[in-house]
């Protein structure tokens, strides 16, 4: 029996809400992300089609993680567009991190436009039960 697989719904690119005034031309998009964590690390997976390892930038300061990426454009000027359903532009997204991150051990990989960022937590994250005493 064939396994049921759902179809991908079509979703236009989400334009990023940039609060600061941009100093560059063109639209800015917010990449679709998965964010999850286990006891050891927080992992962020972001879809950034067109972005290469040279054009992606990850920055962490004051507990704010900023991901930016500029897509590598392959169109040539002599091409004339017949149909344009998506636009290309810079990717931008910020995350505020609550856990303490071991900044020296952050690692990132990029595979076919998918960025995977592993942010290891500092120290052994043991579940700690805090006893509460009846007063």
């Amino acid at each position, binding site marked *: 029996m064939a396994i049921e697989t759902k179809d*991908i719904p079509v979703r236009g690119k989400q334009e990023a809400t940039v609060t600061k005034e941009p100093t560059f031309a063109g639209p800015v998009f917010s990449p679709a992300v998965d964010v999850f964590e286990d006891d050891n690390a927080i992992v962020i997976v972001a879809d950034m089609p067109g972005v290469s390892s040279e054009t992606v930038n990850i920055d962490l300061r004051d507990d704010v993680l900023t991901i930016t990426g500029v897509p590598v454009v*392959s169109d040539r000027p002599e091409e004339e567009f017949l149909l344009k359903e998506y636009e290309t532009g810079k990717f931008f997204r910020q995350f505020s991190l609550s856990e303490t991150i071991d900044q020296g051990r952050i690692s990132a990989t990029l595979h076919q436009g998918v960025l995977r960022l592993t942010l290891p937590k500092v120290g052994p994250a043991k579940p700690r039960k805090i006893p509460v005493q009846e007063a």
Partner: protein
Amino acid sequence: MMIRRMGGWPMWDEAVTAPFAELDRIRRELSRLVESTLPTRTVRPSAGVYPLLNVSHDADNYYVRAEIPGMNLNDFEVSATGRSVSIAGERKIAPEGEQVKYHRREREGGKFRRQLTLPSDINPDNVRARYQHGILMVILPKANHAKPKKISISE
């Protein structure tokens, strides 16, 4: 009595003799203005089918591009016939294990299929496809009889 003319356009004589021609001219002028001021944001309403496509052409080829990040080459199925191209596949999002706790889950996986008819015939034997940085590009050479011919003009 003075008849005022706007910017040297023949507003009076022609407007009387051919009012519809004048309206037509204004309509053309306006659409030309609109087109010239909005050349960068030309995104048209899409077919509502994943993946979204950008299609362009030059003298020799059609170029079909789609943003489908994170695929393996084996999961694509691209085919072309005399005038159409079909892009299908399955985008697999690998499970991350039982222990993880999700905060955000925006990336979508699943099957997709999209077919596109091109404005003129192509040469299906020489179609090439490239997948780089998560963007699929299919290059479809135009059939010889569909290419523009340069006509030499003699005196």
